């Protein structure tokens, strides 16, 4: 298949890439760019392990054509770290046992980050519903809720000063 040239913005950087038009975004990330944090687990958008964000919205890279992603800001799990350190959510997932085998974890990171960006104080039900787009076979999800709850509480503790500043 003849390759075509496209330009993708991934984790804040522009990449010029020659790809086949049937190339999936996940294969491009993993094989062409070495961004192996996004995982292939189900092949058919059932499990969420390949979740990336397109302009801040969680999308499944395993069934998305790379060529269709031009002009959008793609964020992968590799783009999550906070100035080279662990983001609060990443640290909390470690501390509370939200990751066991870790294979689904990058996908959960992208989904949860979207949840918290759009809802600073989600109810338990809202967290459960948001997470239901991703499958985990190790944890039974319980310790993920604890991790997410801890991040929210830490944010809320920090928040009052910001609000004072805003006034």
């Amino acid at each position: 298949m003849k390759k075509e040239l496209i330009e993708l913005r991934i984790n804040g950087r522009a990449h010029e890439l020659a790809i086949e038009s049937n190339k999936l975004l996940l294969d491009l990330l993993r094989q062409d760019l070495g961004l192996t944090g996004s995982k292939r687990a189900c092949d058919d958008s059932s499990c969420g392990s390949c979740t990336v964000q397109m302009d801040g919205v969680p999308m499944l890279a395993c069934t998305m054509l790379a060529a269709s992603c031009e002009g959008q800001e793609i964020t992968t799990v590799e783009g999550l770290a906070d100035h080279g350190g662990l983001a609060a959510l990443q640290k909390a997932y470690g501390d509370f046992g939200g990751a066991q085998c870790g294979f689904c974890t990058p996908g959960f990171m992208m989904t949860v980050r979207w949840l918290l960006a759009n809802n600073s104080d989600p109810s338990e039900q809202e967290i459960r519903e948001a997470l239901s787009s991703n499958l985990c076979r190790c944890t039974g999800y319980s310790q993920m809720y604890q991790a997410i709850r801890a991040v929210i509480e830490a944010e809320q503790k920090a928040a009052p000063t910001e609000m004072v500043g805003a006034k």
Partner: protein
Amino acid sequence: MNDFSVIGKSIAMVDAAGKTTGAGKYTDDLSLSGMLVGKILHSPYPHARIKQIDVSRAKALDGVVAVITGADAPNPYGILPVGHDETALAVEKVRYVGDHVACVAAISEEIAENAIELIDVEYEPLPAYFDPEDSMKAESDLIHENRPHNIEKDYHHVFGDLDKGFADADYIAEGRYIANEVTHAAMEPHSTLANFELDPHTGKLGRLTVWSSTQVPYYLQHKLSLVLEMPMSQIRVIKPLVGGGFGGKSEIIPLEIIAAVAARAARAPVKITYTREEVFWAHRGRPRTIIDLKTGVKNDGRMTAVACKVIQDGGAYCSYGVVTILYSGALLGALYDIPNIRYDGYRVLTNKPACGAMRGHGTVNVRFAFESQMDEIAAKLNLDPAAVRRVNLLKPPTVTVNGLRVLSYGLPECIDQVVTRSGWKERKGKLPKGRGLGVACSHYVSGAANSIIRSDMPHSTVNIKIDRDGGVVVYTGASEIGQGSDTMTAQVVAEVLGCEIARVKVIAADTDLTPIDLGSYSSRVTFMAGNAALRAAEQVKKNIVSAAAKRMNCTPDDVIMRDGHVWKSSTTLSEYNPTLSDSLDEHEAACGHVDGQILRGSVLQTPKEEGPKDHMSFEEAVVAAIDFHGALTGTGSYAPPVAARGGKHKGGGVGPSPAYSYSAQVAEVSVDEETGEVTVHKIWAAHDCGRALNPVAVEGQVIGSVWMGLGQALEEEMVWKDGLLMNPGLLEYRSPSSAESPEIECIIVESIDPEGPFGAKEAGEGSLAATIPAISNAIYDAVGVRLREAPFTPERVLAALRAKKGMKRIEMTESVDPTAPRKLREHGGSLWFRGKGPMRHPLDPARRGTNAGSPMGGGE
């Protein structure tokens, strides 16, 4: 109060950052220059003779480097010495839809897939067997010629006096229970990367390195050696991060050998990663099990005798089957006091993917039957189900009638905990209609006391090396698969040496570097590798302590090592530097950062002329030890004690363990009587893990086990139509999402095992088995129907509810019945993954009309 500084505290896993940032590498994340992609051709037939394979068209395709078939690796292997009945690629016969036939190694995935389509295989279909009870009657067209009646193995055990036991009983319950087939569905699909180096002396292919998603690197090295006819010393197996195993990676999966054979043929690195659908065919999950159970009890619920017949639908190969069928019988014991036991177990071959070991190996389905029947007995005799369990408790230390030694036994406290926390006494039987509570118990081994390879070698060995920088490097063959084995090892070593965990680096599961460990299965790692790590650390500590004692002019008994400091017991640490432990953060302490300088341990060392000291840093003590003893290394190993290795009867080697974990659970459910839908609201799970070395990890394991049991109880099931899997995808194989997962309250019970490392036992599997009967018992409490077949899908629950009212069963699967219009059936079939999966085979009943005279099945 326990006086530990590292263990007993919840800490993040040592590899957690790699997992949350995506930096950690799993096998499929690896690549080598010049690496080829391997794709496998699978059998479209459940049972057929291969008359001819023609790979010439595939080989001719541009970009194809090698095509291999069974003839390239004909040596049989299997995880058990008694079950060497597999070949990496089919030789002569295929035995299930999805059996491996040929493999293409090509420069791209697309080319490999295209080449697969160009392989011409001529099959002669044979009658196939799908139902174990039918298969047991087979006289001809056997699945394996040396297994008459397609019975892989049968065992018949009698312990005690069964006739007397039943004669003594006031009441005898009898029933048949069925648990359908489930699979691990670990998130990471199996993956293997194989590469040969060229030998500089011969100029030919030399050493082989295999990176693989495995729980058992050492067994893989052994079987590769067998099939490739290479010495084990020339094979290196490295286990990168593994994305979950649950038993599905605890034996050799065909692609692991195929990748190596393909790499040899292609003379280039080859990586093969299963598609999700292939993972379902690789399977090795929990077999469909038919349990005929008979329990005799006195009027107070005390058991007098148990007779249990088990038939397991094992699939086409032995796999772990002989062990599974033995576990099913042996672990009738060691939970309750049963004076007389009869067990008849049949492991049967069928033309479906092989079943193997899955979390709670062998115990889960029988435990479902057993705990359900206890509940029936309690209802019949009008007893409290929790009380029935209490009157049947063991009195440890004891040896059960079938030869299992029980020392630590936290079951009574587990029962007390869940009964109290769930409000059992106040609420059981008093909840509104449609809502109920159920209780059940379970247990599991902390590793098998007898190795599956018969030998006297230690089951685990751990090496430790400490250098002058004060860094502690631990080498262990134990396989981290997400359960936290690396973290456990680091904790144990840090605790013994009295150093910070940041100082400990664990190098694991690389057969060139790490000493032999049998692997991560049967919950053996904490107990066995943990004990080995403990002993290795104690050996090193002895040398550090003796050198430190000399330096501090005291006896070794006076030396205390803790939190990175070494001091004389006659003094306290605070006298020397009251702020020391506060002022040094972990990083500084680990690298000897003092006064703005990063110092090597040797520079920190105070010259001897300064006279005896009362306090030393860990680095100083290490340097003193190296100066005094030479290189600072230690080795520890563990083999289970003879007393724990069980009875002498045939098959008595499976079941014994140095220690058993115990679990009790209460489930609260509600049942929608209109739809049959079961909702689990909460599960209280108490687990006796001996001592919780890392409580957050123990809770994670217990909750994960309960959750996996919940999946098997409510919705997970492999659905078969004539040997073809109807639901080979993560959406169709319904494991619970976060929306369906209830709150699980984990209660850790610590019985402190006398032989476990710091008293620890297993935590990763034992809780699973109690969940299924706890839920079925709760359903009975809620609506008064007894579910004897798992999973308890709305269809089965509704059928039971309607049967109770004398109403006709509603056949919800009518639309996927073979006689229904074909269009409706296609939805669940395998065609949707064209090119990666098998074609719908001509023997499929949907095509029967067009394929005259195809003999199917082992009789009706």
